[in-house]
């Protein structure tokens, strides 16, 4: 290195330093890349690999290749074995999509309202801002148990009081709405925090100018605030949607693992993989969830031109 550095030609020296910096960067990155390859890359590859085999979780080595049979396979007797032929899977897909669309929509609306309130000047603003952090800080499993208790038909404030002893969680059709309410409560704070951060980065003099021009608060919101918030809002939307699409814990805790399998895609995959020990089928379902989520990511990124970084 010292020999190279002492050469009188400046550009070579600069390039030499840059090349050395690039090499150093690789070394700094290497541990992270290895860790990611070990815990994400290799398992993901294995999941894709197992999805093409019929295998049991307890003895993965005794497997037989079935191609796409885990996805779609009908025996000669007309028995449908592929998970894509299982109405329960499609029920889980429908419920997950409903859960995602409704809860993310409500979170965005409520998050926006709360953020706008906290962003305006009033007494007790700091208290409300602090209160906002509480639902976000509560672990998901805890909030699921808290709400399961509230919904309980013989003890719960909501289940016994408001619903008059009706067991909302016992019926999948009503349970999904109860679950949406839990997710909205838990994550609206997160949305509100992100929107609030976006609001506080907007220039104040712009609103003064709008006031001077006589624009109403309503017009200011739709014409100024919303367009300027768009980038922050979109990224928050993407992350919340992806979180909602892979939801599992709320369903598992509030409905039990058996009912979670008909209510969320992740629950369905986990039941096939762990409870039924079907390594191949479970992996195939996981692949389907992965592909679906990646397609949605691509749609989001291209349709809304979300810029990361």
């Amino acid at each position, binding site marked *: 290195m010292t020999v190279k550095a002492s050469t009188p030609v400046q550009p070579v020296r600069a390039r030499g330093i840059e090349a050395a910096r690039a090499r150093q960067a690789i070394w700094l990155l290497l541990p992270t890349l290895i860790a990611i390859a070990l815990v994400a890359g290799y398992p993901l590859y*294995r999941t894709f690999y197992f999805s093409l085999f019929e295998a049991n979780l307890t003895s993965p080595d005794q497997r037989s290749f079935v191609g796409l049979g885990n996805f779609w396979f009908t025996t000669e007797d007309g028995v449908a074995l592929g998970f894509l032929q299982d109405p329960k899977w499609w029920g889980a897909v429908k419920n997950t999509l409903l859960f995602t669309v409704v809860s993310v929509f409500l979170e965005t609306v409520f998050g926006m309202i709360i953020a706008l309130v906290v962003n305006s000047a009033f007494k007790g603003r700091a208290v409300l801002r602090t209160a906002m952090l509480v639902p976000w800080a509560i672990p998901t499993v805890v909030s699921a148990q*808290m709400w399961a208790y509230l919904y309980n038909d013989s003890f719960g404030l909501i289940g016994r009081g408001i619903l008059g002893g009706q067991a909302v969680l016992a019926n999948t059709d009503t349970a999904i709405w109860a679950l949406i309410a839990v997710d909205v409560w838990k994550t609206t704070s997160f949305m509100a925090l992100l929107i609030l951060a976006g609001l506080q980065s907007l220039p104040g003099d712009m609103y003064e100018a709008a006031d001077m021009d006589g624009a109403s608060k309503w017009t200011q919101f739709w014409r100024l605030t919303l367009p300027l918030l768009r980038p922050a809002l979109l990224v928050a939307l993407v*992350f919340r949607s992806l979180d909602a699409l*892979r939801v599992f814990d709320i369903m598992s*805790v509030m409905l039990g693992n058996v009912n979670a399998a008909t209510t969320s*895609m992740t629950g369905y995959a986990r039941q096939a993989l762990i409870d039924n020990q079907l390594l191949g089928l479970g992996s195939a379902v996981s692949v389907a969830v992965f592909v679906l989520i990646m397609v949605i990511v691509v749609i989001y990124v291209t349709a809304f031109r979300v810029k990361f970084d």
Partner: protein
Amino acid sequence: MNLKTTNPALYYLQRTAFYLLVLVIAAYLLAPFFWAVLTSLRAPGDLFLAPGDFIAAKTTFSNYTQVFSNPNFQRGLLYSVVVAVGSVLISLLLGSFAAYALGRFKFKGKTMVLYVILAVSVFPQIAVLSGLYTLINNLNLYNNPLGLILSYLIFTIPFTVWVLTSFVRDIPGELEEAALVDGASPLQTLFQVLFPVMMPALVTTGLLAFINAWNEYLFALTFTSTNRTVPVVIANYSGATQFDQPWGPIMAASIVVTVPLIILVLVFQRNIVSGLTAGAVKG
């Protein structure tokens, strides 16, 4: 122009409506938690009471003593701390190396690496469940906290790298250049020059990663059978019989695992918000 002077009636109506909205929001955010705290302080028999009588009923700490004497819960707390702290420390160490490289160095393929890390942080955990399960079994780490630490790296590493990178970018370059001129190696620069400056960022990122690891449920449920973390213990908390749901102790256990988090979050409020926005809004 001022509503207060031109139309005081309308002004006060607006103010009242606004404060009403504030009250509704505060109640919405806090009421379920308040009710859980209250339940954790009531005797099992009081659970049947009407809300008014329930609030007025005698306060007891018996649920808490019962929870703390439960061996599953004690072990759960221990394992949760071990797993969360372990995965956070590893992620902070590896993550700060990577963030230094990504935030301060120019090299080919940097954008690629950033996108790979981002992709890992958005992909569903279920997609790696079967692969990780067999990997953990092969490494003989099933039911071992080490197995959970390993599997938690899948979300703590991308998160720490991403957030720390955005912090490293904001550090003035002069600091590092001065160290470079003095002949410090990149690792020396990182540990002696950047780490002290990055301390608040490391605390914030570590705390957020800790919260994620503390909350994790799917892997903890799947990769352990008896050495479970606290969320799994709470989710499966059962009474003497199958149909007996001991709500008092469940709420007490819930409060015990939540209160430390709430205190941490309130103490580090400002950092948390900046960390969340660095992690989420910027990407």
